[in-house]
């Protein structure tokens, strides 16, 4: 166990996702408490004071996002749980959707209460099958138990929850792209301003939060600020779910107390690098966060501040372990193929830049690299950074420059010798 835990606090069984067992674990006590003894602004204040940071990738303070929405300003507000978990390497929300769906629903009820949102949505990744069935089943259970719908638990608070399945677009995981998709349009992200908390779904104030963030809201309201802040570090309170994949002995979803030593987590909790090989690099949180070498992470802890210092981020918690002997040119080619394939094509730099970078790296990997290619990749990444509507273009650039910064020699070797230093192997 990587430190104390807040979410994975129960043994997963065939029925542990059901309402009865969730209630037996003390479920829906938080919403009952909130409806009985808290005003909406108290919930917001509690989440703000607890210092909860968004778990979707940007680590934006959740409470600050909520504060823009003014309860009772005469217009509808919407809450959306972003369950379109599409960042490569990331499958941690899936654990919540499959095993603790009621934790999410309770968190959404609390958030909807705080935001004065009558309608909530769960936008779930289209490829998720079991998670969809589990969350849809949980919503049905909650409706049947009077935990959703009109006058919840006998209070004046009513809230409907709709589960909506996406159609398989990475960019629909971006909050405004998600909203476009939810409105029935092509999943194009939107220009800011206006912010989504001012004009979001159907042009109304909308809060889009990650599944894990919303689940943490339940914990914060249930156990209180102090209990939450007691876990983690001062700047990164709480825990994070990490989905660990790649060259690792025990891949899977782990809950890690923030501030936990990284190397210790990989070696002890995850069983070390596969086959006892040396650690070459780690993608910390989904491929949109900058890659770090084995040496880089030696003294880092798993906390936001520690990663920011290393010029990367915890991102979405999708940790990909890369063992020594892996060809980084091939790795980057695969990453860029993803961005190229998933670019929505709305704005110019990303539409063309992702494909451009992908074709350059594919050419290098195929042994047809040119000396100016590396410089060209930096050029494309530079002019994708901050010039696009959403972050996909920037992220593609970060993935490229992240790997180029650390492993430039491998690319140069590949260009000069027309072949990879590692026979182009990933395994």
């Amino acid at each position, binding site marked *: 166990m990587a430190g104390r835990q807040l979410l994975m606090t129960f043994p997963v069984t065939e029925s542990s996702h059901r309402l009865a067992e969730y209630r037996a674990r003390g479920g829906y006590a938080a919403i009952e408490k909130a409806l009985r003894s808290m005003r909406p602004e108290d919930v917001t204040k509690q989440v703000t004071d607890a210092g909860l940071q968004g778990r979707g990738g940007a680590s934006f303070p959740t409470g600050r996002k909520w504060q823009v929405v003014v309860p009772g300003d005469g217009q509808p507000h919407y809450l959306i749980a972003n369950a379109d978990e599409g960042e490569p390497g990331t499958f941690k929300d899936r654990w919540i959707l499959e095993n603790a769906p009621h934790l999410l629903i309770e968190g959404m009820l609390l958030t909807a209460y705080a935001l004065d949102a009558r309608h909530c949505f769960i936008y779930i990744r289209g490829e998720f099958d079991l998670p969809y069935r589990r969350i849809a089943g949980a919503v049905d259970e909650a409706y049947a138990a009077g935990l959703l719908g009109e006058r919840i638990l006998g209070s004046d608070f009513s809230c409907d929850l709709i589960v909506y399945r996406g159609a398989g677009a990475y960019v629909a995981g971006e909050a405004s792209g998600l909203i476009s998709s939810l409105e029935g349009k092509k999943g194009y992200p939107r220009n800011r301003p206006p912010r989504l908390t001012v004009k979001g779904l159907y042009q109304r104030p909308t809060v889009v939060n990650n599944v894990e963030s919303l689940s943490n809201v339940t914990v914060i309201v249930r156990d209180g600020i102090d209990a939450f802040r007691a876990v983690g570090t001062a700047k990164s309170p709480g825990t994070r779910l990490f989905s660990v994949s790649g060259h690792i002995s025990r891949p899977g979803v782990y809950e890690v107390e923030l501030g936990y030593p990284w190397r210790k987590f990989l070696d002890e909790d995850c069983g070390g690098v596969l086959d006892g090989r040396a650690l070459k690099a780690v993608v910390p949180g989904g491929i949109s966060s900058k890659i770090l070498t084995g040496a880089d992470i030696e003294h880092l802890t798993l906390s936001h501040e520690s990663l920011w210092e290393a010029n990367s981020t915890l991102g979405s918690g999708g940790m990909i372990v890369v063992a020594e002997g892996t060809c980084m040119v091939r790795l980057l080619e695969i990453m860029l193929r993803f961005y190229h394939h998933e670019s929505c094509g709305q*704005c*110019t730099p990303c539409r063309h830049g992702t494909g451009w970078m992908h074709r350059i790296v594919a050419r290098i990997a195929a042994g047809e690299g040119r000396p100016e290619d590396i410089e060209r990749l930096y050029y494309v990444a530079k*002019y994708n950074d901050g010039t*696009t509507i959403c972050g996909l273009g920037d992220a593609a650039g970060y993935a490229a420059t992240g790997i180029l910064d650390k492993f430039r020699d491998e690319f140069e070797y590949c260009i000069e010798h027309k072949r990879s230093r590692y026979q182009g192997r990933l395994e």
Partner: protein
Amino acid sequence: MTEIVINDRTIDAQPGQTVLEAALANGIFVPTFCWHPKLSVAGNCRMCLVEVEGRGLDIACNMPVTKGMRVLTDSPEVKAHRKAMLQFITLNHPVDCGICDKAGECRLQDYHYAYNGEPSLSVEPKVRSTKYYNLSSRILLDNERCILCLRCTRFTHEVSKSMALGIEHRGDTSVIRPVADRPLGEDPYSDNIIDLCPVGALQSRQFLHKTRVWYLKPTPSVCPGCARGCTIQVWHRKAEWRVKALDPAQNNAIARVTPLENPAVNGPWICNKGRDLARLLERQRATEPMLRGAPTSLEGALERARELIGAARHPVALVSSWGSNEELEAFRRHLGAVFTSFVKCDAVAEPGERIEDQLLIRADKNPNTAAAEALFGRAEAQLPEGTDLVLVWGEGFDFARLPRGARVLFLNAYLQPENGHADVFLPITIHTERAGHFTNFQGVVSAFQPCFEPPRGAAHAEALFAALAAPARVHA
């Protein structure tokens, strides 16, 4: 007023304006592809990136002005990014300007010369896509040239409301495609997307590969298609590019018609009927004066006409609603006292034509009914028994309605069987051959200029009216 600073110049911007609007209103040019004043902000071309001091780069088209903001539109950083955006846009854009109809009036071409000017940095093969995709019987789409600014889709959603276009696929394989059950061919404003297209992706089938735009001259004119009286530009061959060896008819032909922006009448749009002006106007012309079908001289015809007018006791005139304000006034001055005059409806809607809508198209298919009715009243034409002379000016009169025994004086521009039945027939010019004004249904007066020389034999109606009142020399 919100005071902002653009490039060290203090500007009074309107609250609610964007930085782009404020800059353009004050003569500071910022290049754009996707932005259009009459369409919603898409912000996808990223060409209008500007630098805000303290905030970095962002697009000007979606940036509200805030008091005291300092904007740079020409900083080294902005210039470098513009250059890069053009590198991205031209990454998969074919360099086929030599065979592209848009060449010469293409934004991408202009901006490339103004802001980039360098060859592509890419050595990768370009993304191939559909050429000559049939959007409708009027419009072809070249997906390789398309830069996905989405002006056309926004136009069909926001202005013409046909919702006929959308985007299929994603990334660099995105393509504009018609929506299955909403054919673009039924959108009477569809051709505006050809003008809106900042590159050569949308092409007019009528105009396709007909000529290069730099051989053409736009003459300001007014569309005679309905009572809206949209201001238009009639494009025709420049005098210095008149062709000798090829079909000389090209020299006097309308090459194309585009809108002339006019906020008082049509904004930047016109309907497809206006684009098809050539079909309306370029019919076979009458060029010979006739007496009961027998060709005669203009002097002879006028002589005979004056005799008939002098002898008539109950003459009636049917005045053209296609006549210009000047011609109508000339008729009133010279002949108004002689004839009992009625306004004639020259043209009615053709089968399948849209009758009327909320945007531009009016049910009255004549351009100057308003001015004609102001002079000659709104009464229905009366041709009682005893009418002994009918002056018919223009088309649209059913000769079977003539009272028994009445003589006919007919002024018409086109070759028609009725011409030969008139006692006196006088060929006249059409509105692309003369200057004048039309008054639209709202009372807005718009001017048109001559585009072509009249055919030999056709006279201006204004001169004919004077000569019908008293002997005068008429040039034809």
